[in-house]
């Protein structure tokens, strides 16, 4: 079965420090992978998605970047964190649920709570 791992669960970082959040998927190959951010009491904002190794699409301009060095690994990074980068970061992968029309299911990781101080 497919699983998704995301770490760390919580992180407190000072302003100006670098960031690296990692997400890995098991049990599937060539998945579409996603990074979402959620501010407290708000909805989900899509930050980046990737359809394959080295392929990154950014949905919103920001202080963050993403990379996909391996098929089942997706990394969210920043060189210098801002206070506004605080939030709950979620990784997700998209699986094919089949049927007609073809539809997909998203599975989310457990999230990383980032607090920039």
């Amino acid at each position: 079965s497919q699983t998704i791992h995301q770490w760390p669960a919580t992180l407190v970082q000072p302003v100006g420090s670098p960031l690296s959040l990692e997400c890995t998927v098991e049990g599937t190959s060539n998945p579409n992978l996603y990074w979402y951010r959620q501010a407290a009491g708000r909805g989900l904002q899509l930050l980046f998605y990737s359809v394959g190794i080295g392929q990154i699409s950014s949905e919103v301009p920001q202080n963050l970047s993403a990379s996909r060095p391996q098929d089942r690994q997706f990394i969210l990074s920043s060189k210098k964190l801002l206070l506004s980068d605080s939030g709950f970061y979620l990784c997700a992968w998209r699986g094919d649920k089949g049927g007609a029309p073809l539809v997909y299911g998203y599975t989310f990781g457990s999230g990383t709570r980032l607090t920039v101080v």
Partner: protein
Amino acid sequence: GESVGLHLPTLSVQEGDNSIINCAYSNSASDYFIWYKQESGKGPQFIIDIRSNMDKRQGQRVTVLLNKTVKHLSLQIAATQPGDSAVYFCAEPSYYGGSQGNLIFGKGTKLSVKP
């Protein structure tokens, strides 16, 4: 559409009552919808989905209704329990350009169950 900057609307119900959470969509070509449940501090979890060739689908204590005429979706939870307290999101795949297939989330509704 996506409303990530808005505070979540809230719904408060008594334990044992039925809950109805609503969602509106704008694209008449939308053909697939998903409901997710997100408990505090956790990632969203799949609850139930529905294709546009159906107007109703039932799961365990949950029912999703789709009204394509008015582009409205609802999630009904029967006999609401304290464990149902969470934020509920509707979602649909994007149909536009390079984002095709990516999920677009509604603004979410926070459900609070009073014992």
